[in-house]
């Protein structure tokens, strides 16, 4: 079974990507993460398609599943409370280990303004694998000619600093990655260099990147020229930039 989750990161791209996956695959809610590590929020069903299913209450951390494809997804809908993110990562990973997930896939993003010259000229997508990831997954990813996230100076201001994996703006991505390395959890991190703004295209890009590997949805069109995949935008993505404007403004 594969376990997907977002990191709360720049542009909220990971969370938007998970929303697209849950909405497109029509995944069913199977449970909650009840935690004091995230700011509490509630609202009605963000994936509502009609009147009947629009009144189910949703909380800040919920788990969805699609048994036919052996997929489980965690969606995080609010930010971490100060000093609680590490504790959340530890609890989450210990649950992942005890529930027997084969691999964890983290969808995330990182500040695009921190790219070096080489990164500016290359694809904006990157991946990271923990050492425990199975050989067949490693070779599949290598065959896609993907770019691994480059190491950068641990302390950017120091000239002779050591190099390590850094994910600026990636929220809990680095903590999850480091913890998974030490706990020997199979984790694949997929991320994109982004700036904050309208990050819907970034989220679509990230799920397409994921789909190159996992093929979770297939193109619906017979004509290969119109290769757009049918990602379903959730109904809760309305009004992302606020309410309508007063006509008197114009």
């Amino acid at each position, binding site marked *: 079974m594969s376990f997907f989750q977002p990191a*709360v*990161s*720049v*542009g*909220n791209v990971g969370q938007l990507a998970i929303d697209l996956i849950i909405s497109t695959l029509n995944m069913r809610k199977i449970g*909650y993460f*009840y935690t004091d590590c995230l*700011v*509490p*929020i*509630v*609202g*009605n*069903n*963000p994936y*509502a398609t009609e009147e009947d299913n*629009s*009144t*189910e*209450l949703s*909380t*800040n951390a919920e788990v969805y599943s699609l048994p036919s494809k052996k997929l489980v997804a965690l969606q995080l809908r*609010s*930010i*971490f409370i*100060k*000093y609680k*993110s*590490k504790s959340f990562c530890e609890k989450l990973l210990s649950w992942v280990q005890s529930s027997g997930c084969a691999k964890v896939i983290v969808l995330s993003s990182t*500040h*695009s*303004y921190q790219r070096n010259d080489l990164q500016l000229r290359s694809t904006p997508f990157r991946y990271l694998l923990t050492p425990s990831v199975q050989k067949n997954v490693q070779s599949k990813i290598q065959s896609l000619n993907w770019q691994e996230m480059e190491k950068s100076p641990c302390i950017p201001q120091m000239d002779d600093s050591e190099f390590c994996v850094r994910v*600026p*703006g*990636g*929220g*809990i991505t*680095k*903590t999850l990655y480091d913890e998974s390395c030490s706990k020997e959890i199979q984790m694949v991190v997929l991320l994109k260099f*982004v*700036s*904050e*703004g*309208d*990050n819907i295209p970034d989220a679509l890009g990230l799920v397409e990147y994921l789909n190159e590997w996992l093929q979770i949805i297939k193109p619906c069109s017979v004509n290969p020229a119109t290769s757009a995949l049918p990602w379903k935008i959730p*109904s*809760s*993505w*309305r*009004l*992302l930039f*606020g*309410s*309508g*404007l*007063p*006509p008197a403004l114009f």
Partner: protein
Amino acid sequence: MAATFFGEVVVKAPCRAGTEEEEEEEEAGRRETPEDREVRRQLARKREVRLLRRQTKTSLEVSLLEKYPCSKFIIAIGNNAVAFLSSFVMNSGVWEEVGCAKLWNEWCRTVDTTHLSPSESFCVFYHLKSNPLVFGSCPRRNMQVTILTCRHVTDYKTSESTGSLPSPFLKALKTQNFKDTACCSLLEQPNIIHDLPAAVLSYCQVWKIPAILYLCYTEVMTLDLITVEAFKPILSSRSLKGLAKNIPQGTEILKKLMTTNEIQSNIYT
């Protein structure tokens, strides 16, 4: 410095996903000494919420709902919701103070807790002595929770402009196990609630307790007659049925509360 999608370069702009602090925390964690950890532990203890008996200020030795099991638990958050409950619900029957919640954080402004107006932040628990349905002896699984609070109308997302909305207006959010109908329309997506009302509803949703939140969207966040009266439709709901007996008296009490508050907020005294 950060460059945003729309081309501007801003200095010290907070990241929408709230991630800057985490990087600082990680660095701080690496440099943390045992003294820092002790200071942080003491601060966390100071911020803990404690339940006390109001008059004696001693701790309640068991949880409030164990000592006073109830079938209806009503929470009012914010000055207008509290004024509504005080004027229309708590004006009939004998309500006894059973405890209070004491909390401190860096944003608290309340100092004197004996002479409170609805505009000061504090938390007091009451139970209805005469009516066994409210804080009575029913087992907890039959408990129903009702939450009342306000939000500013500009928080409400709609495809029209919020200026054209007939505020104040009521919206509701209910948990899966709440089977009654709400006395107003439900809060539509993409609107969400956060903070304490969300924390209570989340708890009730996860632990399958029937609960409903009545939310009043208003232009006036200070104590306001029209905003408080916007909660009136709830008086006929099953949640508050039988608790509000004397509505005209409630209106009088509310008017007196307004006058008292106005005097307190006069900047010339």
